[in-house]
């Protein structure tokens, strides 16, 4: 049983990312969209947490691009077609509303 976790809030405004990382299972993946993409800002606590945790990490390409964020090699930038496929690949999708 695997879950795709979808985050859209900035990691600098609340504890969603922290809570999510605590719950994340080994088969789970994390998709950053909207302001959640700011977690890819190098040198920040969220960036380091994600890098150290080595989670399966995805980011919506347009949201990273809109925020001038470089996607590190341990994350994958995807489009909406890949978002759909990712949601099928996992058993459940949990959006952190």
């Amino acid at each position, binding site marked *: 049983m695997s879950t795709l976790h979808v985050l859209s809030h900035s990691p600098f405004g609340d504890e969603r990312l922290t809570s999510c990382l605590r719950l994340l299972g080994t088969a789970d993946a994390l998709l950053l969209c909207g302001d959640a993409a700011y977690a890819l800002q190098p040198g920040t606590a969220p960036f380091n947490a994600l890098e150290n945790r080595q989670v399966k990490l995805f980011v919506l390409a347009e949201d990273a691009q809109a925020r001038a964020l470089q996607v590190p090699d341990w994350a994958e930038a995807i489009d909406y077609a890949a978002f*759909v496929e990712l949601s099928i690949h996992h058993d459940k999708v949990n959006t952190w509303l």
Partner: protein
Amino acid sequence: MAAVLLIESAMKFAIAVFSAAHAPSSRRALLFAQAALAGGHEIVRLFFYQDGVYNASDAVVTPQDETDLPKQWRTFITEQNLDGVVCIAAALRRGVLNTEEAGRYQRDAVAVSAPWELSGLGQLHDAVQDADRLICFGGA
């Protein structure tokens, strides 16, 4: 053979939208829905809950230089012949009424018309039973 494989891999999606039309997450919901159909999948139902009911409002006026999401939803749902259900309780408390509800509560303002439909939360539950995946969009 290829056709059989395509049918086997087609999935049923239920999509729930919790955010207002001007929220980025509502736009993501539409782009996801369009990508799902483009990928050969089915959308069992689109359910608009909480502030998501504003996506169905004909009264929304979007600035000319911005994406008119209520209009895009309307076009998408009409062209694809989809089931666009708006939570009736959430819609009533936000003043997003159709003709029937405006008449029932003696209000002048009607903001919802076909292809949108006002109905209960049971429609979300029903869609989830039928679908392979429930995808929610809301918040930021």
